[in-house]
């Protein structure tokens, strides 16, 4: 069965600084990969997804993620963080084809002025 690890439970960055949130997965083949964001008091929103092709994918709100097969990683990045990016971020993986989706435990992002 696949698994997802988000090693950072909580991250604090200054507004304007760059951001990288880590996600590592365990799965034999190339899975479908997702990042979701949950702002305080809000529902989960899809940021971006990777299925195949270009390993650098662009998402909403200026986020991007890079799939690295050799490292089994799908890290989320943003060049310059805004205060409104403070939220919880979840990485998810599935083999696709209606097979079960597995979520990581989430990373809470705090943005300081």
């Amino acid at each position, binding site marked *: 069965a696949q698994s997802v690890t988000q090693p950072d439970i909580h991250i604090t960055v200054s507004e304007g600084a760059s951001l990288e949130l880590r996600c590592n997965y365990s799965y034999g083949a190339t899975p479908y990969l*997702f990042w979701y964001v949950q702002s305080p008091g809000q529902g989960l929103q899809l940021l971006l997804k990777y299925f195949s092709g270009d390993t650098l994918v662009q998402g909403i709100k200026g986020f991007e993620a890079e799939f690295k097969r050799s490292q089994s990683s799908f890290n989320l990045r943003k060049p310059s963080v805004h205060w409104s990016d403070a939220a*919880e971020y*979840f990485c998810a993986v599935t083999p*696709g084809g*209606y097979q079960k989706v597995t979520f990581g435990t989430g990373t809470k992002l705090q943005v300081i002025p």
Partner: protein
Amino acid sequence: GAGVSQSPSNKVTEKGKDVELRCDPISGHTALYWYRQSLGQGLEFLIYFQGNSAPDKSGLPSDRFSAERTGGSVSTLTIQRTQQEDSAVYLCASSSQEGRQFFGPGTRLTVL
């Protein structure tokens, strides 16, 4: 409907009572998930339905929890003899074949 809907949005109940939470997935989505999110915590997987296959119940925390999905569409999560530790937001999501999940707004359950 255009998205996943859940009802009720809020439910307050007394310890020991049974509750039923409802989820209406996006039409055509054959995969449906239930999750629990306690205050300040991440997503806790509860149960997964896919088409006519037997559901994956591996996340249900106790036998007080059960869920069914009728006609491959609407799902009901039932919690019997509720306990205070059951207080949480219960999220439902339906999924397309690619695995992208569409989440409902959740039901906030408070057990007094």
